[in-house]
């Protein structure tokens, strides 16, 4: 867009070069927090209208917002913070982006070069601290390297397997002047990610596919990161292969499609895990055989030949040995495979899966008191896939994966790898700036919301239209579930007090609503969506409820615990009444 062919040859400070470089990268929004070491950069930002700056209320919030922006838009997210505590507050967000392969560039202030190592005020070796959790990092020691470094940082963050890149900016470097010259392109001799799949490997894969009787596509976040939903749909329809997705793969394939099996893994659907267990060919598409998916690795898909498409060679045969690895960009590899494959006769296999869906649907008992599943299912019914759903971490995260029907890519945002509580609220801020076409729905438990609740101020200040949902069971529900199931019901420090969330919302100037019984749920959701701008709703849900199906950690498919049919414990010691079974199936 900004093809600056006539770069002005005047001297600029590092801070001005920084801002100009972001404009060259088409950065439209920066999430940040000023401080002493970046005061010069903030001064340079002051007059710039091309870049919107969002002041979060904590640096962790800035990084999660950058992640939310990146996940929802597919473009790199940018965070800007000061040195020392500003920088160390970004660590959790950076680790989160690293685990989930999210392209973000984090700019941290640093003390002046000559003070580095002197324990100067607000000094932290942030490059050292974040080395194991960044894709790459830079300390800019010379203002003449600044523009090239920023170009490289964006290139590295967004290509190959995406990830966070950190750029540390010493205060004096940013005050030094030089001529601004932004490189048009970047080529690193030491970094050339594979894009196209190797033809021999493709041929081997096609041979395996043509012989399969009970194939399954196992689709991960890589399919979304490489924008391959269109190719995936064509591939599945052409070959007639059923599709299960990981937590991060949700949205890569429409769950309204009859080939959809929903999510697999520890809390995946009964039928997806069953299909994977009995399949004779498993095609992993941008997925990494994570332990929450596989359980015990040597018993995962035991009868299947395995094909693995992944852009990161180090993911191949890391956890599970595969028969045919294909290193390459998922979108490109699927494009290469599409003309080579033909329809398989999977009619019987699909019928078998259909029977499993009918025998073991997702289900819950609806009664007087609210169950989280019900709230999520209602939102699903009302939005019909046309919402960006952002979960936090815990029980509600799994139910949001199960009971929302995902249709479009980049509509399910969650902290999957690191499992960061407090992710949802700040991430929803970033997502709201990335997508104006869909409502933004942030769901948290009463634990997670309290970890980054300060971002309500950000939401109010910029009038960010986030629909904030708190599913309050008074417990750290997932830990409580594990204590119930595996630790003899010894509920050690999992029960917690919450503030009055409706009053909290009102204190921040955000309309608040509350539902305490099931028949209020629908109205409250309607009020929430009918409110212009941000709004918050708290749902008091049954205290003790467990997420099923469940394959306990490190175990095999045969240890799966299906959804029991008994009622769950009520809230506040009252009896749960009027039980009614609700069933829900994907595909």
């Amino acid at each position, binding site marked *: 867009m900004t093809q600056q062919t006539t770069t002005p040859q005047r001297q600029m400070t590092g801070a001005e070069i920084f801002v100009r470089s972001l404009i060259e990268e088409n950065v439209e929004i920066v999430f940040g927090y000023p401080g002493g070491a970046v005061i010069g950069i903030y001064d340079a930002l002051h007059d710039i209208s091309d870049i919107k700056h969002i002041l979060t209320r904590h640096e962790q919030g800035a990084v999660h917002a950058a992640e939310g922006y990146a996940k929802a838009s597919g473009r790199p997210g940018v965070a800007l913070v000061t040195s020392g505590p500003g920088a160390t507050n970004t660590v959790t967000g950076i680790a989160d982006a690293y685990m989930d392969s999210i392209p973000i560039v984090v700019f941290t202030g640093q003390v002046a070069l000559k003070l580095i190592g002197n324990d100067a005020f607000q000094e932290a070796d942030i490059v050292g601290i974040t080395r194991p959790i960044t894709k790459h990092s830079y300390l800019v020691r010379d203002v003449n390297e600044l523009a090239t470094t920023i170009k490289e940082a964006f290139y590295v963050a967004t290509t190959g397997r995406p990830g966070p890149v950190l750029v540390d900016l010493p205060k004096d470097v940013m005050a030094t002047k030089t001529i601004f010259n932004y490189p048009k392109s970047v080529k690193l001799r*030491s970094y050339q990610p594979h894009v196209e799949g190797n033809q021999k490997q493709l041929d081997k894969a096609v041979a395996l596919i043509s012989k399969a009787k009970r194939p399954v596509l196992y689709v991960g976040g890589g399919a979304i990161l490489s924008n391959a939903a269109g190719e995936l749909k064509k591939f599945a329809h052409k070959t007639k292969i059923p599709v299960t997705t990981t937590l991060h793969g949700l949205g890569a394939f429409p769950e309204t499609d009859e080939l959809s099996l929903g999510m697999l893994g520890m809390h995946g659907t009964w039928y997806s895990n069953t299909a994977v267990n009995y399949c004779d060919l498993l095609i992993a598409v941008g997925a990494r055989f994570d332990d929450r998916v596989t359980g015990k690795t040597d018993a995962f898909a035991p009868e299947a030949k395995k094909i693995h498409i992944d852009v*990161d060679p180090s993911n191949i045969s890391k956890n599970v040995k595969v028969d045919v690895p294909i290193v390459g960009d998922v979108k490109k590899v699927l494009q290469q495979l599409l003309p080579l494959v033909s329809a398989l006769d999977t009619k019987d296999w699909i019928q078998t899966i259909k029977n499993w869906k009918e025998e073991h649907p997702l289900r819950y008992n609806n009664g007087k008191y609210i169950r989280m599943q019900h709230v999520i299912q209602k939102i699903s019914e009302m939005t019909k896939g046309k919402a960006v759903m952002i979960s936090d971490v815990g029980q509600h995260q799994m139910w949001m994966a199960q009971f929302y029907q995902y249709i479009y890519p980049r509509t399910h945002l969650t902290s999957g790898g690191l499992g960061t509580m407090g992710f949802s609220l700040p991430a929803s801020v970033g997502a709201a700036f990335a997508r104006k076409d869909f409502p933004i729905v942030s769901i948290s438990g009463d634990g997670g919301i309290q970890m980054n609740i300060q971002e309500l101020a950000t939401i109010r200040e910029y009038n960010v239209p986030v629909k904030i949902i708190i599913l309050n069971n008074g417990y750290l529900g997932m830990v409580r579930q594990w204590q119930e199931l595996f630790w003899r019901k010894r509920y050690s420090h999992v029960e917690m007090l919450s503030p009055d969330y409706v009053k909290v919302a009102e204190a921040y100037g955000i309309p608040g609503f509350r539902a305490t019984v099931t028949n209020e749920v629908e109205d409250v959701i309607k009020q929430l969506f009918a409110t212009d701008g941000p709004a918050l709703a708290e749902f008091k849900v049954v205290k003790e409820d467990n997420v099923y199906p469940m394959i306990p950690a490190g175990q095999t498919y045969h240890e799966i615990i299906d959804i029991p049919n008994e009622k769950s414990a009520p809230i506040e010691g009252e009896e749960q009444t009027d039980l009614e079974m609700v069933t829900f199936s994907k595909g």
Partner: protein
Amino acid sequence: MSETIEQSIAQTARKHTISLLLENKFGALNRVAGMFSAKGYNLESITVGPTEDASVSRMTIVTKGDDAIIEQIIKQLNKLIDTLKVVDLTYDSFMERELALIKIGTTPENRPEIMQVVEIFQAKIIDISHKTLTVEATGSGQKVDAIIKMLKPFHIKEIARTGRVALKREFVGEV
């Protein structure tokens, strides 16, 4: 049960010499060493120095692991943005050298015997005082181990070893 599994892993684990070329940039050694500790890989020795091209460093890494671990180590090394080339020399014919400085406490009586050992190993005496003698030994890791073993009965005061450096052998004729 677990013992037999450990044994079988130990049986297949072997020493590998990996040669790594990487951009001679700030913090590159740190990235490599950090990756080994973060992933819990064994790191027996690591040497780094400039090459014929000033912008490139060569690192020689000696590590131990079964095939799956070595495969991951090589992939993880390749994954580092500054990495230019990774070669596992183990299955090739390669030249390796290590250097050791060995300072030995001496008496007039044992000095000739020490000098004999030094001569047999074609090592060099590079420093001498009334009470000490310092030997420079160069060769394969095994040769350096052997001279140290032979000098052990004397009073070894200090040892400094470089770790292994290695290059692929180009000679391909019958030996």
